[in-house]
């Protein structure tokens, strides 16, 4: 049996509380607040305490789904990205680039957020970028 402890940062909001993931045999068992963390000092809110639950949730989407005729259908990543790109192109052509907005997330890393705004500004041509912590 292998039990490991992985230090990490809570991905819910911008505060950046320190958490410790307890895994047994590769499965995430629980989230423990990191006692010595300078930001949170061993305290967490209810969201941080339950970080491990959405990873193990059976409700989690693991494959891309495309809505066709009102129903979600499994598809490949390539096809899903192609469909998304085509639809964006249509919308931009018809209503202009400012008809699109990009919502980034505290659950993503700094670099991913950077890439998202790059996509919005350089590819879509819009400044409509906002963040879930402001919603």
């Amino acid at each position, binding site marked *: 049996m292998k039990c490991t402890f992985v230090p990490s940062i809570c991905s819910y909001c911008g505060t950046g509380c320190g958490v*410790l993931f*307890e895994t047994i*045999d590769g499965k995430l068992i629980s989230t423990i607040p990191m*006692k010595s963390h300078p930001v949170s000092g061993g*305290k967490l809110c*209810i969201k941080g305490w339950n970080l491990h639950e959405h990873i193990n949730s059976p409700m989690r989407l693991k494959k891309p789904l495309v809505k066709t005729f009102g129903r979600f259908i499994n598809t490949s990543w390539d096809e899903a990205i192609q469909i998304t790109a085509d639809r964006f192109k249509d919308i931009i052509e018809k209503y202009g680039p400012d008809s699109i907005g990009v919502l980034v997330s505290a659950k993503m890393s700094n670099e991913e957020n950077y890439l998202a705004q790059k996509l919005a500004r350089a590819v879509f041509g819009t400044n409509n970028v906002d963040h879930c912590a402001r919603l």
Partner: protein
Amino acid sequence: MKRKVKEWLEDGTVDLFLGYRMNCGHPLPHCFTKEEIDDVEHLLVSRTRYSLEKIATHLAKRDPELKIGLLARDCNQRAINVLTIWHQLDKDKIFALNVNCCPSPIKPQADCSYMSGEQTSSYKVQVGIDNLMDIEKADDFSDQEKNVRWMYEFQKCLKCYGCRNICPVCFCAECTLEHKDLIGPGRLPPQIPIFHLVRAAHMAGRCIDCGLCEDACPMDIPLRLLYRKVGEIVKNVFDYNTGESSEQSPLSLLGEKVSLSLKPM
């Protein structure tokens, strides 16, 4: 200490050993194994405390045959006693390596995150309950003042469930605090004082006064003091010293034999 752990792992006394080591600049729990025995050199006793015995119960739940060693301060040891009494850990499969504990009048030289406690802010001392207060002082307030002061503390609650989640002796599969008919879901603050008093009542005969709940409380509610009072009542009424007695708690009403015997007068 390191030699002992190596010995235990090598001769198979334990399958794994729960201790601490530095990881990313933080003293964090670590699971030492025979395969990576050289890591034992990094074993350390730190001021930070984690509930290693709670991790041991997670391991034991997955493999009841597993022999687990762990570093144990006095509070860990008391928790292990309670967990074995409640059949969450097997007495013969848990090996505690005792280490130094909280600084206190009895033990001036010790490593512990709790006892060094910061000074309570003056506003909290004025209107609420000072976390560093002892039971007698907290009992000295008039009933009305007690009510006002404790309600001030309880109304701060964020309902994060941290006190329950971190508690080494909270292991029930179903928790009263999550029962929708008893504690209404989706309301903040939770119904007070019932939320806290339900938990306090459930701590009778279980709380081993480790203080992890208060450490984890983002709102600084003096939970340790509250549960200490509960523990004192259990001691006075039933003569049961939680964490030190080896008998079943007087308040365990499940099973065939019910033993609610009061302390002899």
